[in-house]
């Protein structure tokens, strides 16, 4: 869709700034209207299970150790030891140097290993360093790469550089799937979110992702609305279906279900699967398990009935 000439700052600016604008008030109203959807009974049960299956169970702390990652992986493959019907999560998400640990813990399961890369979370490093970061993760066996875009470059209009970096990372990924983190909290406006979404998709993203989880605000419903609209429109224009990942600050089952409603009524039901929609979270999983058991037993179990990993 873009030629070599079309990847200059000026050409990309024309394209991205030519996208329809986003009215912030209207976007918030749409989100508020969709938040009134009442999801009960079968629909709620299905949503809870689907949300669990869509989780990228995440630990991205300086203090991460192999022990911590092993515990996380055990939870990922069997979130509820008392009930094997609870699906495993979609993936775990860790720093590159812990990918190896995660891979061996998850061997034989359906849970993928996603690694952050490209000087996560700030993205403030040279391209060679970022690519080396990616290569480390790939060599260690990562199935998915969650890269960050250079927000400084984006906000100063160097769209060509952002494009080139994503393309280079996409190439370094090989057969691994690439998620591109826009860090929407730093992009600030919904217009920027729309533009960054398109830029990432044009450069080859398999997923566009809201946040690193290290900056507030992280994922918000209006941001998700814009990104879901972008992937819908991109597929119509370019014939390729790109996924969306919301990450950061999603702690309750209620929030997760609201996002599923957004997916359903914005991008459409074809995005309602772990192939096309992910939720980056850690504490959310226990709330989903608690709501799930409440639906089945009629009672809320205490927090200590759900493992802390």
């Amino acid at each position, binding site marked *: 869709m873009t030629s070599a000439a079309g990847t200059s700052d000026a050409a990309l600016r024309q394209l991205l700034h030519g996208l329809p604008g986003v009215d912030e008030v209207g976007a918030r109203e749409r989100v508020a209207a969709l938040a009134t959807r009442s999801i*009960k009974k079968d629909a709620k049960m299905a949503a809870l299970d689907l949300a669990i299956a869509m989780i990228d169970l995440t630990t991205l702390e300086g203090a991460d150790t192999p022990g911590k990652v092993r515990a996380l992986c055990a939870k990922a493959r069997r979130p509820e030891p008392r009930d094997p019907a609870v699906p495993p999560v979609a993936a775990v998400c860790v720093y590159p140097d812990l990918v190896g640990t995660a891979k061996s813990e998850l061997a034989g399961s359906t849970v993928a290993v996603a690694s952050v890369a490209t000087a996560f979370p700030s993205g403030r490093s040279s391209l060679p360093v970022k690519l080396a970061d990616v290569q480390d993760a790939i060599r260690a066996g990562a199935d998915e790469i969650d890269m960050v875009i250079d927000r400084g470059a984006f906000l100063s209009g160097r769209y060509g550089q952002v494009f080139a970096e994503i393309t280079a990372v996409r190439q370094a990924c090989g057969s691994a799937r690439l998620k591109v983190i826009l860090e929407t909290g730093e992009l600030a406006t919904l217009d920027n979110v729309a533009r960054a979404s398109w830029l990432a998709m044009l450069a080859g993203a398999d997923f566009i992702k809201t946040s690193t989880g290290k900056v507030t605000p992280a994922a918000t419903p209006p941001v998700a609305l814009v990104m879901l609209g972008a992937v819908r429109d991109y597929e119509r224009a370019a014939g390729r279906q790109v996924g969306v990942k919301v990450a950061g600050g999603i702690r309750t089952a209620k929030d997760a279900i609201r996002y599923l409603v957004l997916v359903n009524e914005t991008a459409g039901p074809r995005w309602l699967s772990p192939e096309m929609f992910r939720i980056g979270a850690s504490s959310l999983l226990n709330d989903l398990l608690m709501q799930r058991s409440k639906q089945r037993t009629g009672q809320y179990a205490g927090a200590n009935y759900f493992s802390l990993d």
Partner: protein
Amino acid sequence: MAGTPQLADPAWAYAPAPESAGIVSIAPEYGLFIDGQFRPAAAGGQLATINPATEEPLARVAEAAQADVDAAVTAATVAFERVWRPMPGAERAKYLYRIARIVQERAREFAVLESLDNGKPIRESRDVDVPLAAAHFFYYAGWADKLEHAGLGPQPRPLGVAGQIIPWNFPLLMAAWKLAPALAAGNTCVLKPAETTPLTALLLAEVCQQAGLPPGVVNVLTGAGATGAALVAHPGVRKIAFTGSTDVGRQIAAAVAGTSTRLTLELGGKAANIVFDDAPMDQAVEGIVNGIFFNQGHVCCAGSRLLVQESVLDEVTDRLRTRLAALRVGDPLDKNTDIGAINSREQLTKICELSDAGEAEGAQRWSPACQLPQRGFWFAPTIFTGVSQSHRIAREEIFGPVLSVLTFRTPDEAVAKANNTPYGLSAGVWTDKGSRVLWLAQRLRAGVVWANTFNKFDPASPFGGYRESGYGREGGRHGLAAYLDA
């Protein structure tokens, strides 16, 4: 991925989420509310009101005849002279605040009752109708002791008895729009709700009792056209406020001509919703949908003509069709319903007749696939493309979920086409360019111009139209003027 759960259906079916009707207890019959009491019509006449979503009867209400109109106006006159006019504004305000609070406390009851009697989705009655109704009472309560600051003179005086006739599309909200300013200004009221939607007005009368409102200050006469005509003709009524069709508005204006009775009319519309090539597309589509499908299109200020810039016609209509496919038509009491029932068989017939005319005129008709219930009055959301200004569906108010799509080339042409109607109630403008919003707002002949939004109401904001959309304004300081002698 093996073992990945899928949702039960490929399309995620939201399970039924009905609001319980148990919160409301509807009596088998209701009397007229005159002088603080409910009583049957003197001649015993009754009308039935049904649930338009199911055609089930809900209740029988009294049909007020001449004797009842006389009794109500007399009660209102006595209450005006002896109680309400002498009462200081701050005291009147207390009753209005009390009514507002009780409406809020009984909000769920009002919302469910409104949806049962009118057919509109519970989400709308709960989130729009009831909160706005309470807001009007709160707002005008605040004016009751500040009339000398309304810019209408140092001592503006109330007129006396106000006869108020309201339509079936927003039964409770229209009652609030009428009663609140009239009472705040010191008038007493005789309210005639619409024939097909009397129940929330009667519940409001109960709230007036609950608030201890002095007898005769508010009277509610249920009935049909004849009741309204008798009220309009009554010499004891000093002021008529009417919201409804342009035809009936004209009749009332004729009846009142030559008398000293003051009159305000809020009538029909055929509003233009104008979408430019630089509009925020997704939000514009929401605005178009809201503009014509909110309340099933039973809105005087509905954006029933989409004027889309020709260069983006295909893009907008494609997005619109995709969006319409996600609209949920069905049980008004289901919290996930977007579009409810048409209020009456009569209205449904009108909508069908005009839609057939649209096809006959050569416009292209489209509706999303919809499973409409067997019983009740239903009409699928409908779009007509290829419409021109000379088509009936571009000129006549359909008052249903039917959108006529026309095109324009330049801003000048948009203004000309938008204004090329005998109506002038509202308009919408969708563009990312602020200067263009201001340019259009100055030139559009419409009582309210919405910029990148639609159907936004506030008690502080005056609402009303030009030309055949009526005269006078409701809401804000302007809304007081109709009820005062400066």
